[in-house]
């Protein structure tokens, strides 16, 4: 690769290894970052990408290996050292204090002012100035919890820029963003690059890699699997390097007959959110056995309320929820689950799993006081564990055993545990929300094929997803949600992402 010689190396790792008590997360990683380039880092869930970045950022100490900055060996004993050398990092999980303001979050740890007292006036001026300089508009006095994820991310980037970052690490910045926000982010990243900042970006989305970066490294199971210039590389090639086998990027969907009587019907459902504002407005929807109805929309347009009201987690204000012709709107969540309604929640760690409990317990939970999970008053652990082992095998959950705590699994495998639990209960109606958020291509392929298999077994499926690609890959019918209403029904065969995107943002083509 010829450009290597001509450009300045800003950052280099030599044979970095990082051993955690149970896993070797990084094994002999040597990467180079050139001045003013955008480098991406690709790899499956658990490949060790975040670990490597945290090592660079001084949060973890490498077990062995060296870090060189402008050719000089450095040793960071804490992020403070890394920051002082011009590194900035936007972490995979935001590092913002919800209850503090934008300004407070940005200046935290580097507050202007004399003798321990913060000069808030100056701080605010500095924040406004830097936001203006990079065109990152945000209200400096707003509290973080009132900001959208996209704006929160802006604050994270401003935090790094405020500290004069010359090397910016972005760990999965796009996972939680809407397509528009992704575009905005990439604009910002390009501006930064042009002003001399070198950027390392982690993402699971191959088209993003192609769009934004000049070069990429691929990690697999802690090892460096290869390096490619993005110009000239193909998605299939990158996916193959990541997973170590050929990956079908879009799972084949075969036509399937749909039963006439709906399994689930929403009739004029209206729901209020915590602030007593209508979050769902007069929604009507029906889902038939054997079809996947995809809800497309920008996050925060009533999708979470839709899922919660169907599962009975929030009450209906008015309207009916008919399951097999019976109104279930007054039933508890438990009673609905026992009517073979299954739910894969969007936040797998908060609502889908009890992280410290074992995989086996997580699979039994909800049904644990029913035969055959229990005997009399006690749980039948021998059955629970045996049953879980079977599912671990059939759902290809990568773990040391079914008795490992769910929290020790990678994101993709956590999601598989939830799928294993819900799908094995033979639901007649399945509500799936954001099933592949943050997952790698291999895991996505698997989960998509499982969802399609459920459809082919005549389950009625409602799929909520912010990813248009996912909607197009799976849905038989597309419903677009905007401001709590279903504004349009579209046939995936006869529409495209552009048209759906237009309805999602309130336009009407």
């Amino acid at each position, binding site marked *: 690769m010829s450009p290597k010689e001509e450009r300045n190396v800003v950052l280099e790792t030599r044979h970095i290894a990082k051993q955690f008590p149970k896993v070797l997360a990084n094994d002999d990683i040597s990467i180079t970052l050139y001045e003013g380039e955008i480098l991406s880092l690709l790899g499956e869930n658990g490949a060790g990408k975040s670990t490597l970045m945290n090592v660079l950022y001084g*949060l973890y100490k490498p077990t062995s290996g060296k870090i060189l900055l402008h050719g000089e060996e450095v040793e960071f004993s804490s*992020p403070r050292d*890394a920051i002082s050398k011009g590194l900035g990092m936007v972490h995979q999980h935001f590092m913002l*204090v919800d209850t*503090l303001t934008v300004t407070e*979050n940005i200046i935290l740890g580097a*507050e202007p002012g004399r003798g321990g*007292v913060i000069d*808030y006036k100056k701080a605010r001026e500095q924040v406004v100035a830097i936001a203006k300089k990079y065109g990152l508009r945000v209200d400096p006095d707003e509290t973080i919890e009132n900001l959208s994820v996209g704006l929160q991310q802006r604050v994270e980037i401003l935090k790094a820029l405020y500290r004069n970052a010359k090397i910016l690490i972005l760990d999965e910045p796009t996972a939680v963003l809407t397509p528009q926000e992704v575009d905005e982010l990439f604009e910002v990243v390009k501006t930064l690059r042009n002003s001399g900042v070198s950027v390392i970006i982690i993402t699971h989305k191959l088209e993003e890699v192609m769009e934004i970066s000049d070069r990429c490294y691929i990690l697999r199971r802690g090892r460096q699997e290869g390096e490619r210039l993005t110009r000239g590389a193909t998605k299939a090639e990158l996916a193959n390097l990541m997973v170590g086998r050929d990956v079908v990027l879009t799972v084949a969907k075969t036509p399937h007959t749909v039963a006439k009587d709906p399994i689930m019907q929403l009739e004029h459902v209206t729901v209020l959110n915590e602030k007593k504002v209508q979050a769902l407005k007069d929604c009507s929807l029906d889902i038939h056995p054997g079809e996947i109805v995809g809800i497309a929309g920008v996050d925060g347009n009533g999708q979470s309320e839709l899922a919660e009201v169907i599962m009975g987690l929030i009450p209906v204000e008015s309207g009916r929820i008919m399951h097999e012709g019976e109104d279930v709107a007054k039933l508890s969540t438990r009673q609905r689950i026992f009517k073979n309604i299954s739910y894969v929640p969007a936040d797998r760690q908060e609502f889908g799993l009890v992280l410290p409990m074992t995989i086996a317990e997580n699979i039994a939970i909800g049904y644990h006081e029913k035969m055959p999970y229990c005997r009399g008053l006690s749980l039948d652990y021998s059955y629970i564990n045996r049953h879980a082992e079977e599912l671990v095998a059939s759902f290809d959950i990568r773990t040391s055993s079914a008795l490992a705590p769910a929290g020790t699994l990678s994101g993709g495998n956590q999601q598989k545990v939830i799928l294993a639990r819900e799908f094995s209960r033979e639901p007649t109606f399945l509500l799936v929300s954001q099933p592949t958020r943050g997952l790698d291509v291999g895991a996505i392929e698997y989960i998509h094929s499982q969802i399609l298999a459920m459809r082919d077994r005549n389950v009625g499926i409602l799929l909520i997803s912010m990813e248009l690609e996912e909607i197009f890959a799976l849905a038989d019918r597309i419903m677009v949600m905007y401001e709590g209403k279903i504004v349009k029904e579209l046939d995936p065969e006869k529409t495209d992402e552009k048209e759906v995107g237009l309805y999602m943002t309130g336009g009407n083509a």
Partner: protein
Amino acid sequence: MIDMILASQIFNVDLLAASIRLSTPIAIAAIGATICERSGVVNIAMEGIMIVGAFFALWFSALTGSPWIGLFAGLVFGGLYSLIHAWATVTLHLDHTVSGAVLNILALGITRYMMVLAYGHPGTSDSIPVTLANYRFAVPLLSDIPILGPSLFNQTPIVYIMFLLVIFFTWFMKKTKVGLHIKASGEHPYALETIGVSVYKIRYLGVIISGLLGGVAGAYLSIENQSTFTEGMTNGRGFIAMAAMISGGWTPIGAFLAALFFGFAEAFQLRLQISGAVSIPGEFFTIIPYVATLAAVAGLVRKSKAPKADGKDFIIEKED
């Protein structure tokens, strides 16, 4: 029935002054606990810290003849004792509640042992000739304000210290860098660590502040309010302080106001009991402040929100 004369015996200027006196140790401990929990460490050890502070304040007063040195000793030993809590919770990653519970019990053991060592018997110490109550002074002008003046500004030293602490820590949390770090440490410690501020250090600081203040709160009991140390003399005030911290919404000023309310409930029941206005056994009156505590916590707690990472262990490289 309470007639007019009795009512005027209960509700008078003295009632306010007494409320403030009774709320002083609670308020000081509550402010300490507030700072500690804002940094992310749950501290149910205030009771134990106070009793340790109370003993050493008295003992050093007795040894040196100066209650000021006693006060300083209360401060220092409270701080030192709390270091155990910081070490256990922050460095060793032990459960905060367990460590706090152990420290409360250990404090009873330590003070009994020290009593025997210093006085040859458990129970109550000899009384010291000069206490901080001897240094009562009226603030010129302010103490002339009708009704409020005499009760607020004709007080003993630690009461004034309490007022200053309320003002200082309110300012400290709102305006200083360290105050901001403490808030971040209790809400999202990783956010703090990743911008280069050590969460360990901030949490140690939070715990030590609670220890210093707990020591002063204890000193108030033994060398200002009384002139002796008695085992168990804190009598649950450390826990009432926790209630005040919670009802006060984890702010210094809120903690003070809540403590004032409990102090008032206590002063009120004492007066009611002495007046003999209502002829039921005294024990029932004694319950009043505790019921008030319960009601206040039950009523206010739902509205007040604990720091998000309060009591959550902070660790960068997990063992799992």
